[in-house]
């Protein structure tokens, strides 16, 4: 996949949708392409996170450790981004991501991301997208809580 196709793909990801294509090209250029075999870990729950992955090809499971072993809580395929939270704040991985098929991914490092973000325009767009995502997740969580309460009652 060529750089300009990667840029196209990045634009389909909500966080980057409104970022200037020139900047996205820079981001893509500053990021490296990585390949994984099936059943390899992109990252492990509890590790310190320093980069996000945009899956270009293949799919992976999102797994969480529970008292009785790993629980699959989601799946990612092409055009998806995983581990993006660590781009904006320090912290550990909240889940493990393990490939289920051979995966081609674009590895966006926190360092490179921060340097692209030096531009205030870019920052605004990305944070807005993050906020929207947060908003969606929170309302989802609220709905779940309400559902749980109803179940309890």
């Amino acid at each position, binding site marked *: 996949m060529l750089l300009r196709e990667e840029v196209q793909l990045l634009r389909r990801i909500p966080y980057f949708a409104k970022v200037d294509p020139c900047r996205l090209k820079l981001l893509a250029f500053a990021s*490296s392409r990585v*390949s994984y075999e099936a059943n390899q870990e992109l990252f492990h729950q509890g590790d310190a996170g320093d980069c996000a992955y945009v899956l270009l090809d293949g799919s992976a499971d999102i797994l969480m450790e529970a008292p009785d072993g790993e629980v699959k809580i989601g799946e990612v395929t092409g055009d998806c981004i995983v581990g993006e939270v660590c781009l904006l704040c320090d912290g550990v991985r909240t889940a493990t991501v393990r490939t289920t098929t051979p995966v081609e991914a674009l590895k966006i490092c926190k360092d490179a991301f921060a*340097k692209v973000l030096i531009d205030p325009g870019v920052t605004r767009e990305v944070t807005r997208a993050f906020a929207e995502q947060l908003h969606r997740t929170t309302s989802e969580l609220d709905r779940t809580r309400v559902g749980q309460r109803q179940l309890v009652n």
Partner: protein
Amino acid sequence: MEKSLLRYIWRHTRRQQLFILAIVAASMVPYFLAFDLPKQIINGPIQGGGFESEGATQAYMDFTVTLPWVGTIFQFDGIPLDRLETLGALSAVFLLLVIINGLFKYYINTYKGRLGERLLRRIRYQLVDRILRFPPSYLKKVHAAEVSSMVKDEVEPFGGFTGDAFVQPAMLGGQAIAALFFIMVQNFWLGMIAATMVAIQVGIIPKMRHRLIELGRQRQVTARHFAGKVSDIVEGIGTIHAFDTSNYERADISHRLGHIYKIRYDLYQWKFLVKFVNNFLSQLTPFLFYSIGGYLTLRGNLDVGQLIAVINAYKDLPGPLKELIDWDQARQDVQVKYEQVLEEFEAPTFIPPTVHTLAPKSDDKSLSPLAAVNVTIEDQSGARVAEGVSVRFERGETVAIIDNAGGGAEALAEAFGRVVWPVIGKITLQETDLLELPESVSGRAISYSGADSYFFHGSLKDNLLYGLKHAPTSTVTYSGREATQRRWEMHEARMAGNADFDIHAEWLDRGTTSVRNGQKDDLKNSLLSALDAVQLTSDIMDLALHSTFDPEVHTELAARIVDMRHALRSTLAAKGLSHLVVYFEPDRYNIEASVGENLLFGTMKQGASNENSLLDSDYFYDVLRSAALLEPLFDMGTAIAENLVDIFGSLPEDHPFFQQMITLSADEIDVYEQLLLRFKDRPAGVRPNRDELRSMIRLSFNYVELRYRFGLLTPELSEKIVKARDLLHDKLPEHLSGLIERYDPHRYIALASLRENILFGKLSHRIADAGDQIRAVASGVMHEKDLYASFLGVGLEFDIGAGGRRLTLVQRQKLNVARSLIRRSDFYIFNRALPGLDRRVQSEIVKNVVDFLKEQDHDPAIIWVLSNTSLARMFGRVVVFDRGSIADDGTFETLEQESGIFKSLVA
């Protein structure tokens, strides 16, 4: 050493001086004969004296030997020669005399030179010998660079002076006295005048020169301090930069140079003043002759002939006199220098020479106990750091010494290591004072490693094995020319009072390694185990992997590495890991490498300018032209420029990406942007000029499709690039051929590092942990091929730089401990040897070291002054120091229960 240089010279070169004096005297005979001969030639054959009649002959070489009272005992009537023949014969004699005189001069000068050099060698050797025998505290006060400047530069003039020391005054004095005597004979009173003037000259000039000598002394001292300061700057350069004090140093240097300049200027002024007075005085005598002599002549007290004879005789006086005075000046000058140097090399006590006697065989007797008897140690300021310490250590003990307050433990360990000498009491080894024992005993029975270690310039291996080089353990037998050379070396060494030990003999004592099974590989095993114990092995392996070696010298190793290269490749293939590496193949484009690397297909010689000189060469562009690559690479460069301008064009100049992502700066991006605009405005069909072409093509060299992902590398293009490799390498002109070495899968590449030679390809950068995976496999292959020790061997050849500065501090400390561990000793003293390491590593290494030494069969004692007191647990006995004396002594467990100080220390 004698107080006076003349006496020193006389003592050591007395016989030679007398000999050369005799030679000089003998040389006078042909010298004066040659003076007389021209007169004979002119008066005789040329002007015809004695050849008045036609066909007249003269007897040639007629002589008689006459003894007093006995009368003539031999008579030779000579050979009768005519005028022309006599001219020929006399000219031939003249030529002969010229040659004889020349040969005499040649011999005398060479002899004097040799005499001087030998004496110089003797003095230098004695000075260094004194350095080796100074008491340790004394050397702490002196500056290394100043001492070396003394030994090297300040004694230099002694050599030149030695040859003239006695010959010159004897000769010149003789000439001057002869001239004076001759004047006296002509006229007593005029002779007295000349004598008085000489006396004034000889009396005054040296007095005036006192000031010169004083200035010379100052010059010498300031120059010496200057040398010390320069070396200070070199050694402290890091500190200078860190604290921004470079201008302070500039001021200091400038001040010193100003001072030296002032002294030298003063020196010149005085020198020429003295010269002026000297010249004046010698011209004053003829003045007196003319005026007083003339007056006396006019009065009729003196006849004209006598006056002229006196004035003529006087011509010969000032020359020798002036040289004599110059000689005296030189004498005083070197005498002052000599005193100056000697002053620095005097110490109240020296280590007696017997302590340093060469002892090739170490007797295998074990020595014990090591004890301190009522020892008091002072630091440099005279404060007592340890007082009245008495303690005994037996072989087999493991002892931790820790300090509560003060530095008593450290001081005691230093005394054990003979780094300091106790002021009261003594250290004994098997009841003998350590300082009286020969170092061949104490230096082998005790291995000491302190925190401040020193390393000598050389390889890692030289430094590791340094502690085993006590004496030559074998004699080298030389033959032929080498034997002559060696005999000459030994003869000269003895003539100059130097030691004649052979540096080329085997100095490594293989019998005194810590691991000793009587096998051939004891040394290797000691070395490897010592490195393992201090955890230095992986560092050395890294050094090895990044280093290069000459395959011409290590042919076998090179072949084995090529073999390993193939083995690694097949092992990776067998494990299904081939995709981790893209190998360099002569007929295939390497997709992980850049276009430039693919073109050159070889390793460049280190150094940035090398790469440019090849890539900018016309030859290189000729190759590109004949490979039909100019056009495609230009297009590729243009496309890259467009992309880069697109990506980076809007970034601020100081954006970190310029450093990180591409090798271009913001300015260069601007240049390319301009270029692209220029191309756009140009009508189609106009070709770019040479510079434009080249700058675009240069851009294409760094392009790696997998990394840049601009989609510019077509299969056709890569095929063309591969084909261009042969073109490039086949006719590489001579001045470029040394810069690059072509990749060949079946050959060791001398310019490439060990690592590159093993891998012989590029790691796939898309696979996140490719490096780790390869390392694991390669390590397995290395052990399988039994290359581990060989690789470490390459790493051990690493040049550690002056004082070991090419190693990190931690590496130096580990090396310092390892250096002791290789030696077989009865006592190992570690004096806070690992302060730079973190606690975990420290404790691992202490454990390793204790375990390693306990495994050996000689049951040594280990005495460790710990900075990390909790490690005391690993030792059988603990000694606690408090304010310079021993507070507690016992096992860890008892002290833990009973000693208050210890409890607070360990807690």
